[in-house]
Structure formats: C-alpha cells, structure tokens
C-alpha cells in the first residue's frame, strides 16, 4: 500500500522589538546571564505586565503578510504549568482569541503551486533557559518574557520537502515584514511538527504525533522523514500509533518520546486578569497595513515593470530577502538595475554556491559591490577584470579600489597614452601593417592582440581597434 504523510507546523518566531513583551528589558542576544531582567520578567510578587505596543504592531504586520484576518477584539490568557524556567509558573499566551486567524501562504514545490492554510497566529512570552552544569542546573531569565509569535498551519503539507519549503517561505515573509531577524543559530525560529500517515487517497487523518522544538530546516526535514518511516512501519505491522509528544535527538539521529497523551499537561488556560482585552480599531490595522514594508510579490512586480528585469531574475532576487536587500543596497550607489541583477544572480551567486555560503556571510558590503560595478561602468576596468576583482573581494573582503590599485589594473582609455603604445606596436610590426594595407583584414586582429599584450590587457579593445584603423588609413 502507498502511504501519504500529513504535516502541520507550529512555527515560533521571536519578534525583533527592542524591549520585551511585558516589561522594558532589552532583548539583546548574548548578554551575560540574568542581566536583561527586572521584577516583571522575573515574576516577582506585585510586578504587573504591560503589553508592548510594538509587539502588537509586529504580529498584526505578520498576520497581514500571511493573509490573515486581524481580530478587532482579542485577549491574553494564562497557560499554567510548573517549570523552573517559568518564573510566574504560568506563561502569558493567547488561547481562544488570537490576534490573527484564517490566513494562507502560497509556496512553490517542484514547480507546483501549493496553498498552505494558516489557522492562527498568536502572541506569547518566551520562558527562560536552563543551563546544566556539573554543580547543578542554573536558570538564565534573559529570555524570559521575550516576545514570540506562534504561527499555526493547517495540516496541509504532504511531504517533508513541502514542510521545509513552507518553513523557509514563512522565514522569508517574516524577514520582509521586518518583524523578526529569524536567526536560526540564535534559536529565533523554532518548529514543532505534527505528523501523521494515512493510505494514499484516504480522506481521514491518522493519529498524529508532535515533534517538538526543531531548530533548523535540516532537523525539520530529518525528523519528519524519520517519523514518517516509523509510523509507516508501525501501520504495516498492524501496530497502533499513539498520540505522543516527541523530541528529535540530533546526535543519535532518532526520535525520543517525551510524554504520551495520558500525561499531557492540563494548562488551565484562563484570561489574564492583569491585562485588559486588546481592542484594535480598523484605523490601527489600516495604519499598520499602510506602513507595511514592501513584500516579495510587490517587489517582484516592481523589478519587472520598472527595472525591466526578466521574470526569472526578479524571482531569484525576491525569493531570498537577504539577497534582495543586498541587491537594493547596491542600487543605492549604482543606477543600472539590470546590470546589477545580472552580476548578483550570475557572478555572485556562482561564488556563493561554490562555497556553500549565504549572502549575509559575505566578507564585503553591498557598497563595495556597487563600487566595483561603477568601475566597470566608467570603463576604468573591463567586465572581465571585474570578475577577477569580485572573486578577490569574495576571498579577502578587500575593497575593489584596493584590489585595482594593488594590481595596477586599469583599462587604458586615455587616448593619448594608448596612441603612444599603438605607435610603438606599429613600428615593431611593419609586416602586419603592410598586410593590412594590402587588404588582409585579418592582420588587424594580430595588431590588436599585440596592443592588448603590451598593456597587460588593460586597454579597452574597442578603442584599440578604432585607433588602429584610424592610424592605418594614413
């Protein structure tokens, strides 16, 4: 029998607000343990939460970017459970009235468009972090009360690849919407995957399991593949699948059961009486919409219509928000969008792919890249030289100016200087001059070659050709 996997994702993304969601503490990453804390995020008696308006603006922005309905009335609830990283012994989250619901995201997988439903997006606070040491377990509350959004999808994905593509697309949207920096290595983006299997063609869902806290696309892919195989082999053996919470073990490349349905927490959700219901006026929502950064679809349209880019170039540039930002930064100093797109998508991409690197890991800035393109535009160096300079920038991080002057690169376009060299070449090659003047057109090719050799390739071949013909007429 053929089986189909059914996947739903819960994506937790930390918002990039400057302060935490219910207090004024800084959200800077990597601070000394327990330095970004105050009575509120430490859960001290008597301290009260105050909702961060920016966080509300950001979640509304994320909701709009993901085609959600924005609730005019929502509220914050308490999710009660005991754990040492949770100082109040409850997490402020949202239960039945989240800020955003009923959205979707279109993704392309293997050339096919797929629409993934988004059930809801809610706002919540993060917990602290346990640090296990030989002397005992310590708690760092810097992360306590950091603003998080949880994006819950419908069970609309049918392969691990689709789930990964969806997760990547969500990351891209959040980056474009400028609501999260989405730094995977800092744990800013985390995934929970709900996985079930069913015979292909079946309309009912199988029993699902939930794999918690996956922190990279690779882990997401591996964990879903593993769980799919595990469930299929269980079904084939006639075993029953139990609703469970699981954890992916990266070192063992396997799945570990955390708890079964019977041990599931009873979170005793109820409205947080310390916070008022949040009423968002239509004006507020409109205002957020109005101030929304440009989303990839809009950018793509603009690139094609205004910059005259090909559909392909526009697609490649907008599919990756960091690449897109890099491209637009080049255009701040350089005014030929088509040429810039070509250099980014062909030359720069080739270097990145060969080295398996991301654009944000580049050693040089977009400003450097613009400088390089300007040198080519002005004819100071040739396009061919430019490629060499780019790969050196890539390796050393040096500015194009440094590389060009250190190497003595410059396309000799100063006619007087070029004429001197050409005169010398003509004097040294009387035979070729005679051949050309006798009607052998080919001879000019040899002479151009000699000039280029004499200038170490720094002359503009076009100008050399023109000057030669002019001189040989005489």
């Amino acid at each position, binding site marked *: 029998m053929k089986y189909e996997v059914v996947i739903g994702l819960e994506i937790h993304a930390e918002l990039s607000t400057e302060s935490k969601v219910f207090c004024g503490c800084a959200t800077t990453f990597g601070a000394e343990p327990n330095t970004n804390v105050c009575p509120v995020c430490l859960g001290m008696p008597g301290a009260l939460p105050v909702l961060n308006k920016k966080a509300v603006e950001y979640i509304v922005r994320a909701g709009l970017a993901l085609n959600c309905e924005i609730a005019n009335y929502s509220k914050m609830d308490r999710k009660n459970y005991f754990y040492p990283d949770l*100082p109040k012994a409850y997490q402020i989250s949202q239960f039945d009235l989240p800020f955003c619901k009923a959205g979707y995201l279109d993704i392309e997988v293997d050339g096919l468009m797929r629409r993934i439903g988004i059930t809801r997006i809610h706002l919540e606070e993060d917990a602290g972090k346990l640090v296990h040491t030989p002397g005992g377990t310590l708690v760092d509350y810097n992360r306590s009360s950091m603003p998080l959004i949880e994006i819950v999808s419908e069970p609309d994905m049918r392969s691990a690849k689709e789930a990964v593509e969806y997760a990547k697309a969500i990351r891209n949207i959040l980056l474009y919407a400028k609501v999260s920096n989405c730094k995977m290595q800092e744990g800013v983006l985390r995934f929970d995957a709900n996985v079930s299997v069913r015979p292909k063609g079946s309309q009912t869902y199988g029993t699902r399991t939930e794999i918690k806290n996956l922190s990279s696309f690779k882990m997401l892919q591996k964990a879903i593949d593993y769980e799919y195989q595990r469930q299929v082999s269980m079904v084939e053996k006639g075993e029953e699948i139990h609703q469970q919470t699981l954890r992916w073990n990266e070192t063992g490349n396997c799945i570990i059961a955390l708890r079964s349905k019977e041990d599931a927490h009873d979170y005793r959700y109820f409205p947080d009486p310390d916070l008022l219901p949040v009423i968002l006026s239509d004006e507020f929502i409109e205002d957020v919409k109005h101030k929304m950064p440009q989303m990839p679809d809009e950018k793509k349209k603009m690139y094609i219509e205004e910059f005259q880019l090909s559909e392909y170039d526009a697609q490649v540039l907008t599919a990756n928000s960091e690449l897109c930002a890099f491209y637009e930064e080049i255009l701040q100093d350089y005014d030929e969008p088509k040429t810039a797109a070509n250099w980014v998508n062909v030359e720069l991409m080739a270097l990145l792919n060969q080295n398996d690197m991301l654009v944000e890991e580049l050693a040089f800035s977009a400003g450097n890249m613009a400088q390089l393109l300007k040198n080519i535009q002005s004819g100071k160096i040739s396009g061919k030289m430019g490629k060499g300079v780019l790969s050196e920038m890539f390796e050393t991080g040096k500015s194009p100016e440094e590389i060009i002057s250190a190497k003595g690169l410059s396309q000799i376009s100063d006619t007087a200087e070029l004429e001197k060299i050409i005169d010398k070449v003509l004097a040294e090659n009387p035979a070729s001059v005679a051949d050309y003047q006798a009607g052998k057109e080919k001879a000019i090719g040899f002479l151009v070659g000699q000039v280029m050799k004499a200038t170490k390739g720094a002359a503009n071949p076009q100008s050399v050709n023109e000057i030669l013909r002019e001189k040989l007429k005489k």
Partner: protein
Amino acid sequence: MAFASSLDQVGPLTKDIRDTAIVLDEIVKQDVKDSTSAKIKTNYADNLNEDIQGMRIGVDATLIEASDEDTKKAVLTAIEKLKELGCTIIDLSFNHNEIMVAVYYIISSAEASSNLARFDGINYGVRIEGENIIDTYVKTRSWGFGEEVKRRIMIGTFVLSSGYYDAYYKKALQDRSLIKNNFDKAFETCDCILSPTTIFTAYDAGIKLEHPTDAYLSDVFTPAANIAGLPAASIPCGFAKNGMPIGLQLMANSYQEQTLLNIAYAYQQNTDFHLQRPKLTKGGSQHEV
C-alpha cells in the same frame, strides 16, 4: 502581592469621609505599570458636598431582611436619616443575590491558584529542597502555605481543570456579566445602592468555625462591588447590643465616586457613629461615645 487580580482593589481605611476623599484623590492616579488603572482627573476632597437633595438610593429589601436584627435596625434607621436629608428610596430586586458568593469564590480562587503558583521555591521566597524538582515544589508549597490558602488553591485549580472549567469557571464568568448587567440597569434608576456591609456583626476573636466555608457566607454583600467593578464604601451606622460595630454599604456606578463620597459625607455630617469607638470587653463589647 496579588490574590485575585480581577477583583482585588486597594481602598483607604480612614477616620472619616474627608480623609477618604483626600487619600482617594492620590491613589486613583494612573499607574502606567498597571494596565488596569484608568487615567482620570479627580478632586474629590475639594468637591465634597453635603447637599444630597434628590439623590435616588436603591435598596433591595431582601438583603436587609436577610441580616440579623441589630443590623437590620441600624440600616433601616440610616435609610430614614437619608430620607430626612432629601433622598428618595427606590425599590430594587436583584435576581443574583444567591449566586454572588459562589461567583466570587470561584473567580477569586481560580485567580489565586495561578497568582500564588510563583511561590514554588525557585526564585522567590522559601525553598525546601526535595529529591527532585517536583518534590521540591511539593515540599516548599506544603510547608509555605497555610490551610486556608491551600484550600483556595485547590478550589481554584479544580474549577479551572479541563472537564470542570465549563461547569464552574466559565459559568462564573457568565454570571459575572449577568451581575454587571443587573447593576448597569439598576443605575439607570438610582444614583447609589444601599445595603448592610455584612449580614451579621464580627465573630469573637479566636472562634473556631464548624465548617471553614461558613465564613464565606458572611460575604454576601461585599463582593458585588468587586465582581461588577463598582466603587463602594462602608461607613459606621450603629452598634449591636453586644457592642460590635455595624457597617452601612453604599455603592455607586463606575467612576461615580464623587456621588458616593457626597452621600457618605452628608450622612457623617448628620450622624456621629464615625466618632464613636466600640468598647471591647471579654465575651462581648460595649461601646462608648
């Protein structure tokens, strides 16, 4: 420390209404670190006015009937005094008197169970080390809380549990809305609602109750203000035969503190119960002027 956040309210305990007004003018100011505090401008003390001619006072007679004899007598006398001062009495009949105590104890216990959860021995207060983290929680909380607090935590945890939530907590929230609506309607016909503060006077100190929840029943009149979010005042209106003081409760509509204070002020300008001290004696008390 928060007990039941949606019901908790601070209030001044003062010698007379003028002092109340002075303190209230300060404590009503907005606290930007408390999302539930409102931004309003007040000057209650300077606007105190003993002319309460034409004020409509709502009274639900069943509440007075339910009280003990001494309380009843004192409250009825107070009503006569207010009539003398030009007030009209409006008859009210609430259908929520029976559920008031239950609503209050369900909501307050639910919130308390969550508010007090942070006292788990991890980063605030006492800790009794256990074998493991769960054991530490259990030992710390078993040792640290008193009987009555534990009882409220258990009630609160129970009413929020899945399977009981709808029957208790959710029902209590629905009843809370109903009570609020009843008061909204009542304040269309009156400016202030009057009742005894308690159904009977204070127990003797140190007395042991047969059922720990019996004491909850004396709270019939006071939770209304917390549940419906209304300003209320309790002012002395007499003494029982055993010398125990009797309180008169006045409640006004939301943000109508000035009306409430004016009525109480007028009453105190024309009575002297607030100037008398109960005289405490063994096995009862006598009051003196």
